């Protein structure tokens, strides 16, 4: 029997995980739930998060001795894919993937936090971007040193899960100039700390995003993850894990949008014919399916590489994110167009897919960011 973890096929365990996730999410978090939350002005659903914790999803990347399920990055991607299919909104990426991957590298300092994440008690936001594009090195938010203490001042412009998360992973500048890759430090602080103002943003995907304003927020050396001035290194495992899982979410989203569209093509009649019988639409649907198939390989590969050789995963992760951003864009564009007028209405679900795809394309690096990494890795 071939060892499937060496291939891009799902193992038996992974097939079971996928089926279980799909079944649970169809009941607990259909697109209708996102709509209801949006209409109620609610961006985070604590009850859903508690159920995810119960199933071990919050601990998917957390060691068993910290109460996690430790299923690995491929499994984390499969969960993200299934969440993407139905647009399940939760702090899963920020907390269970990104924060867990960062804290896992933080030695004893991270143990308590990991236990709290696995138990579903702690949620995290990653505060990185200060401008409109993903650029950690451009960080200007200042951490001014006063003895063993720091004062944090500056603005994080786009922080996913930033208005509801209990804790914030924050990249701040402890030395050097914006643009320097050195001189950045990663802090782990309580979101309620004095001087931290959180302004919820009303974003197109109806999820929790916030602008975080730091006005002399107090921090100490105990709040630092990794080493002083070495924040990018401490952040890398989290960012890469997050990029891979976000790519998986986007690909699941593409699959979900394609499935809804295919269903519509098989049922909608115009000119006395099912529109899915028109070859022009068949070819577009077939092309979209092909693109999704090809992207799914990049997603599976990123998970496998992160599990096997995490220090050598940059190419695999960027390939996944670059492909996923484009595939999701194609899927939602084709979905709305093939639906026609009804696809433009808020009453129909497909628009939610388009909006989330746009947000996902930007977060943690857009297509151009990742294509440049791939080009560099491939020698040009």
């Amino acid at each position, binding site marked *: 029997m*071939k060892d*499937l973890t060496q*291939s*891009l*096929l799902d193992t038996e365990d992974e097939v079971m995980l996928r089926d279980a996730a799909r079944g649970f999410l169809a009941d607990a978090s259909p697109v209708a739930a996102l709509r209801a939350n949006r209409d109620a002005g609610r961006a985070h659903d604590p009850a859903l998060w508690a159920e995810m914790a119960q199933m071990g999803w919050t601990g998917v990347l957390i060691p068993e001795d910290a109460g996690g399920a430790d299923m690995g990055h491929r499994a984390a991607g499969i969960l993200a894919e299934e969440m993407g299919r139905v647009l399940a909104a939760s702090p899963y990426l920020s907390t269970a993937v990104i924060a867990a991957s960062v804290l896992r590298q933080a030695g004893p300092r991270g143990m308590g936090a990991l236990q709290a994440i696995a138990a579903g008690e702690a949620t995290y936001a990653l505060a990185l971007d200060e401008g409109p594009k993903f650029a950690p090195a451009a960080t200007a938010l200042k951490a001014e040193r006063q003895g063993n203490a720091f004062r944090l001042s500056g603005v994080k412009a786009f922080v996913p899960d930033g208005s509801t998360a209990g804790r914030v992973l924050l990249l701040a500048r402890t030395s050097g100039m914006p643009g320097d890759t050195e001189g950045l430090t990663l802090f782990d602080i309580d979101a309620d700390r004095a001087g931290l103002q959180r302004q919820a943003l009303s974003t197109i995907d109806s999820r929790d995003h916030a602008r975080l304003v730091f006005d002399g927020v107090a921090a100490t050396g105990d709040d630092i993850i990794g080493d002083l001035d070495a924040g990018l290194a401490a952040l890398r495992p989290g960012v890469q894990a997050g990029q891979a899982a976000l790519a998986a979410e986007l690909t699941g989203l593409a699959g979900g949008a394609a499935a809804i569209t*295919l269903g519509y*093509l*098989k049922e909608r009649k115009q000119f006395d014919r*099912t529109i*899915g*019988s028109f*070859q022009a639409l*068949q*070819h577009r*649907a*077939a*092309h979209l*399916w*092909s693109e999704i*198939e*090809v*992207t*799914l*390989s*990049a997603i*599976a*590969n990123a998970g496998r590489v992160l599990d096997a050789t995490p220090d050598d995963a940059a190419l695999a992760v960027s*390939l996944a994110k*670059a*492909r996923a951003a484009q595939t999701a864009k194609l899927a939602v564009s084709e979905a709305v167009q093939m639906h026609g007028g009804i696809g433009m209405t808020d009453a129909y679900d497909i628009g939610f897919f388009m909006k989330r795809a746009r947000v996902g394309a930007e977060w943690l690096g857009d297509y151009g960011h990742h*294509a*440049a990494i*791939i*080009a560099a890795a*491939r*020698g*040009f």
Partner: protein
Amino acid sequence: MSDATEALAAFRAEISAWISDNCPAALLGRPMDESAIVWGGRNWTFADDDQRLWLDRAISRGLTAPRWPVEYGGAGLSRAQEKIYREEMARIGAPPPLESFGLWMLGPALLEFGNPAQKAEHLPSITRGEIRWCQGYSEPGAGSDLANVQTRAEDMGDHWLVNGQKIWTSYADKADWIFALVRTDRDAPKHKGISFLLMDMETPGITTRPIRLISGKSPFCETFFDNVKVPKKNLVGELNRGWDIAKYLLTHEREMIGGGASGLLGGRSIGQILAAQDGNVLADPILRAEAMQAEVDALAFNLTMGRYKDQAEAGRGVGNASAMLKYYGTELNKRRYELLMATAGSDGLEWDGAHGGLAPEWLRTKANSIEGGTSEVMLDIIAKRVLEMPGQ
């Protein structure tokens, strides 16, 4: 290690040693251009003695047809063993001792559909490189609509009488035998009146004419059949069920053409090739963006070929999804050659200039998405069979 793993490791060591011991050193790592390919056949002339020696030794070990049964001249290898054999051949740099349509297409068809006499008559001569086969499928009126075969075979009691014309018959002018689709029932629905017939090219009434392409000389021919008498025993499978065999073989062909796309640039990335060209063409932001996109897509496509291969090896068929490999791989290959031409600029415009051979290769890639089923037919297959979209 399990017993099976141990046995495979032992096989790898054994086959690796055999290849190293038997493949003449002069053949190792030689570029695989047309002159390096051994096609075999009645009129074959070897480029040198090394080629002949390598073929003879491979035949003696059954390795011209690794997976075929030993009784027909194969080596009887398992799928896993064959994979190891090919890996070791590639690692050592040994060329395939023999290539042919007999090995790729007719053999698999006979093994699946042929009767014992046909297998005994034809398979050994294929494995020994004695008979070179060509494939007679397409006709002037049967391209994408392959089942619209008009070449007819009439039952004359003691023989078939064949009349008609084939087109795009690769190497028909050099082949010894042809396997062809012929119409044996003109009243039946078009898929149901086709049979699969074997013909000796020396039979009176068969003539061939080479076709010149936009890319220059080509192996393609037109093949004409004028009152050709064919023995009754040369019909493979059941009368009027030849379409089943054709479909079986087309799946093979699609995987080969789509799969070939990744290897055409010798494993190098498009960016690496472009970066090595004079004048840093990648400084042009538009070409650079296109090259990046081609690279991203090629990397993801290569992973997908690996995934499908693993799926087939795990015993879960790929089925109609192979149409995607053919579609995506050939379209990708065309994009890459467009990029190579754009970056070569006027250096790429001569038939035999500084980028010798690039222009004809670029032109030839335009056929990739036509031969073996057009991209549009592949999309039809995906839409109808994979996505189960409604018919017209």
